[in-house]
């Protein structure tokens, strides 16, 4: 079961378990919601191809006390309907769980219209969102269950790429995968396996984030031996750099921000090819990280 199917199964279970949960979607993934729709016709709403409406219908349901799960591709959920996210949820001061699919390049043949590497950076302009970046189908379920059980504003980024194993999922907590003496590499969501492959034999610490907001500054500081940090994010490069700077404001430090580039590639092909083009495959990461270690003052 891939992460998106796991999301659909979990939200279906949550609709069965909790009468305050509602699901709003806009055609996308509808094939995965048939059973939920049959069992809960009033709490599962397909709004058609109407993403502005999608987000505000979720917010309107939240105004009545329901816990809405709002779903479509990231490009339409966050980018197209961004003002609805800002006003419908933040400004109305209601909670909700936005769940995107598609990520940065899950649909490489779809081209730029279906790629949303800027989604996390956009959500990050708004206060108070918990941002989940599960790197495994099991983590999708854990993240969604935790998010829905709360009453805040949650963004769950469901992407196709997975790590070989799941890690514990806690909001705003990073997991120490290994400790080393030189730089600290923060691997976000599906970037963990490539990071572990890329840093084999390097004396670095690796932190894993299945949720990236709130940013776990305490975990970063706890493993930091020398103040060199490498961020590896499966979306726009540099999205979390400001929080590394905040965490290390009391000391000179270096940050290498790796992630999806700003440039529009205008390429199709496979997700693996896009990963390599953004130098997020093990070979590309190895070159970037090794170069960063070599040039650092701390390397001397």
């Amino acid at each position, binding site marked *: 079961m891939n992460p998106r199917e796991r999301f659909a199964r979990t939200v279906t279970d949550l609709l069965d378990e909790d009468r305050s949960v509602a699901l709003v979607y806009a055609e996308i993934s509808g094939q995965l919601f048939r059973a939920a729709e049959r069992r809960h016709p009033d709490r599962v709403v397909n709004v058609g191809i*109407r993403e502005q409406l999608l987000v505000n219908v979720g917010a309107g349901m939240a105004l009545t006390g329901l816990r809405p799960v709002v779903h479509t591709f990231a490009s339409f959920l966050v980018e197209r309907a961004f*003002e609805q996210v800002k006003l419908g949820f933040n400004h109305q001061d209601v909670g909700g769980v936005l769940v995107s699919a598609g990520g940065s390049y899950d649909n490489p043949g779809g081209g730029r219209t279906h790629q949303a590497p800027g989604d996390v950076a956009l959500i990050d302009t708004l206060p108070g969102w918990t941002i989940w970046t599960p790197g495994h189908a099991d983590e999708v379920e854990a993240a969604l269950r935790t998010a829905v059980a709360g009453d805040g504003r949650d963004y769950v980024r469901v992407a196709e790429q997975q790590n070989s194993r799941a890690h514990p999922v806690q909001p705003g907590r990073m997991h120490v995968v290994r400790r080393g003496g030189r730089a600290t590499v923060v691997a976000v969501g599906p970037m963990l396996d490539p990071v572990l492959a890329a840093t084999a034999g390097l004396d670095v610490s690796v932190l894993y984030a299945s949720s990236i907001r709130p940013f776990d500054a305490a975990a970063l500081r706890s493993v930091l031996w020398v103040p060199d940090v490498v961020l590896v994010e499966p979306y726009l490069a540099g999205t979390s750099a400001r929080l590394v700077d905040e965490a290390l404001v009391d000391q000179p430090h270096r940050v290498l921000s790796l992630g999806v580039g700003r440039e529009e590639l205008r390429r199709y092909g496979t997700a693996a090819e896009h990963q390599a083009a953004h130098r997020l495959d093990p070979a590309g990461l190895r070159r970037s990280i090794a170069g960063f270690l070599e040039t650092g003052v701390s390397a001397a």
Partner: protein
Amino acid sequence: MTTTDLLRTTSYGDLRRLMGLMTGDEKHTAAATSTLDVIWVLYDKVLDVTPETVHDPRRDRFLLSKGHGPMAYYAVLAAKGFLPEEWLADWTSFDSPLGHHPDRVLVPGVEISSGSLGHGFPLAVGTALGLRAQGIDSRVVVLVGDAELDEGSNHEAMALAAALGLDRLTVVVVDNASASFGRSARLAGMFGAERWEVRDVDGRDHDALEQAFTAPADSRPRVVIARVEDTA
């Protein structure tokens, strides 16, 4: 409405004085008062909501989508006891909860924070769906301006509300013919094409407004087109 509420209720004739507290005089532009009669009739005759029930899940909801020129709204809320009259004179100051666009977090009785056009109608559809899912048959009334209907998000909401048969949802379009590319003559047809029940009334006629809002519902959402003098 209880007897206590009736005793506290200020009359329609007092609204201009209340608005004067905000604007410093008792003369108001048509834009500022275009919504006055509609909002008064809703709170005085139609909606089942009082200052005591603003958090009751079963209250009726009024959503002011067209958040511009909210003096009439604030005046009615003050007249009906939702907010203290003393707030009005100081409105839009740094410390005042009353801005040029209402904020539900700051003002008791305000259901949505508005100001950016085209959000209230979709929020109202979500509210109506949320209430229906919980078996609550409260009414949801959302006020939009005729020019606000330029925003495409309204048309997404219009289509879905009819498709899902949201018969507890009412849209009131205050039509002061302010859209640059006017469609006053086509408003009824536009909603009618999406299979809405259409009521077209004089937006200053209290009896006609009350009748349009309270006539028995059929299985469709209703639009009340309230015609008021144009701004020109």
